[in-house]
């Protein structure tokens, strides 16, 4: 039923190439989920998120110093290996320094005919952020129009916004099915759905969700065992999800930029469409690199944990991801104070399933039932 998403996720490059064939449109690779995809989509461009491949590689050493996160190096490796040779453009919406390096090295060593650095504000909590971003989006829109030779009308933007919002609503509807005592899909399946949405035409992706939503709702959920939440930095490590969900646990919700953080918020209509889009990105569930001076993400996470009835949380982080490292002690404390135990794991390009399995099983034994005791 969910095979289509897995297929898109696994054959992302084939999908994008076929899309180009079919539509003759341009494909834009973007780094970081702060990219205002609506504007690209309105111009008839297919935005695809650049992700890694989880294979050990030796090509990025000359370009990125080893103390930066394995994810940004894995992403760049894909470019250097020519796996994204079909891209017409690349863009980044300013967030952390790590992923920025993948972008700037790509700019120089894997040139494309259009690259764009969007100055997304970091201080999203300042009232100055919204007008500022609206201004930057206006510049971006002009640049995209120049590149594609297509003027982007308000109607185009409205259409794009609606298609994106619908996709967001549908994915949240799917997440709702995980609240059930017998979640209707696993964390692994969900991850494939969300990641697929980052690399396919949203309209097509939404079609697929609509097709299966009914069946999903009516299919018997599984006995979840321990209800887990997974949260932290970028995470598309399906092998890990599989491993954990084979140990008598089920991920019922997440907070990742490859998960709920990506689509949680919708664009709310405003007369100035760019302002409406800007507001969405300024007010969305933030990446820790933008969550200051207050830590607004903690309440959101506690809310998810409560609403999805979570028994424990696995907190993961890409090795060397400073923004997350700077939040994790506070998040773990907050979860702990709310009676939710946490297990912390540091992710690399490949995760050592052996050592992680021990930690995960011990964690599940710890929060699990007292079967072993009198």
């Amino acid at each position: 039923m969910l095979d289509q998403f897995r297929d898109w996720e696994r054959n992302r490059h084939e999908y994008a190439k076929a899309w180009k064939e079919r539509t003759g449109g341009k494909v834009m690779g973007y780094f970081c989920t702060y990219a205002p995809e609506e504007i690209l989509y309105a111009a008839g461009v297919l935005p695809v998120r650049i992700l890694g491949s989880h294979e050990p590689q030796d090509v990025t050493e000359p370009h990125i110093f080893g103390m930066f996160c394995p994810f940004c190096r894995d992403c760049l490796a894909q470019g250097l290996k020519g796996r994204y040779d079909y891209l017409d453009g690349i863009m980044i919406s300013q967030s952390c320094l790590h992923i920025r390096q993948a972008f700037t090295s790509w700019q120089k060593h894997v040139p494309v005919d259009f690259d764009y650095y969007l100055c997304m504000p970091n201080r999203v909590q300042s009232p100055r952020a919204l007008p500022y971003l609206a201004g930057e989006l206006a510049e971006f829109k002009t640049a995209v129009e120049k590149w594609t030779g297509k003027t982007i009308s308000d109607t185009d933007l409205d259409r794009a916004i609606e298609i994106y919002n619908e996709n967001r609503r549908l994915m949240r509807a799917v997440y709702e099915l995980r609240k059930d005592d017998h979640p209707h899909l696993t964390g692994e399946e969900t991850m494939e759905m969300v990641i697929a949405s980052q690399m396919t035409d949203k309209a097509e992706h939404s079609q697929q969700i609509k097709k299966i939503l009914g069946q999903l709702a009516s299919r018997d959920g599984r006995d979840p065992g321990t209800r887990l939440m997974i949260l932290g930095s970028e995470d598309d490590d399906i092998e890990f999800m599989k491993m954990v969900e084979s140990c008598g646990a089920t991920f019922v919700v997440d907070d990742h930029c490859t998960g709920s953080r990506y689509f949680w918020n919708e664009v709310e209509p405003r007369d100035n469409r760019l302002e409406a889009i800007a507001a969405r990105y300024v007010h969305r569930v933030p990446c820790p690199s933008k969550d200051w001076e207050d830590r607004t993400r903690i309440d959101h996470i506690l809310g998810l944990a409560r609403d999805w009835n979570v028994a424990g949380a696995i907190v993961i982080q890409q090795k060397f991801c400073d923004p997350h490292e700077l939040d994790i002690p506070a998040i773990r404390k907050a979860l702990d104070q709310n009676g939710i135990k946490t297990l912390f794991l540091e992710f690399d390009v490949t995760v050592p399933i052996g050592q992680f399995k021990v930690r995960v099983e011990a964690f599940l034994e710890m929060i699990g039932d007292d079967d072993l005791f009198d």
Partner: protein
Amino acid sequence: MAEYWRWKEYRWHDENKNWHDATLITAGVDVGSVSSQAVIVTDGELYAFSNQRTGSDSPESARKAMDWALEGTGMRLDNIGFTVGTGYGRVNVPFSDKAITEIACHARGANYMYGPTVRTVLDMGGQDCKVIRCDERGKVTAFAMNDKCAAGTGRGMEVFADLLAIPIEEVGELSFQVEEEPPPVSSTCVVFAKSEATGLLREGWPKSKVIAAYCSAMAHRVVTLLEQVGIEEKFAITGGIGKNIGVVRRLEGEIGIKALPAKFDTQIAGALGGALFAQNLLKKKLAVT
């Protein structure tokens, strides 16, 4: 080449006990990265155990450990009602009825070995180092393990024993044969500490002094992990390093807490915990049928 880093292999069983009188006979087998232990428990009491090296074939290691524990007891494998496998090879114990992690088993084992007052257990094994907090039943309430860097694991001490050609059992004692405590080696990274040690020896340091420097470096490294989880008394140390007073004493010195004295070989804690879990599981099984 002599393997100084290996712990001596041996077995024990309670001569004064007749296992035939026992109603519940269970076992735990801990297939670790370096050594394997089998423990037999009769009616909740330790009856027999064995401790030997792990081969690269874990089912084989498990079988050998079990056979050796049974040796001379007249007991046979099929007299054992329930067996729990634990350790790295927990899923490869052919005759086990359930696999449980070494973390849960060490807490449970420590609870029996040191009494129900144990709240913090430090297990320094071959390739990882665990800090476990537990309640009065020996149930884990929190734990932490060393990160991707293996510094501060038992392995480092083994490399040292080999490098200096000193049996691992003697390392601890030797580390105190110094006029004054040397500064700790700067690197607990096994590979770098090795070259650092070689350097010191080339400078003419006596072996005892080098070991002292390494023991305190290791103790220090482990204390950082301990303090992350928080040390609540009573405190106990299990695993191979628990037998290395060179590390244990220095560690106690740093945290200002004495570790409880071990009633048995600290290396069997995991297998013992497994055997005790097996008791509960057996009871429940019998209750059902």
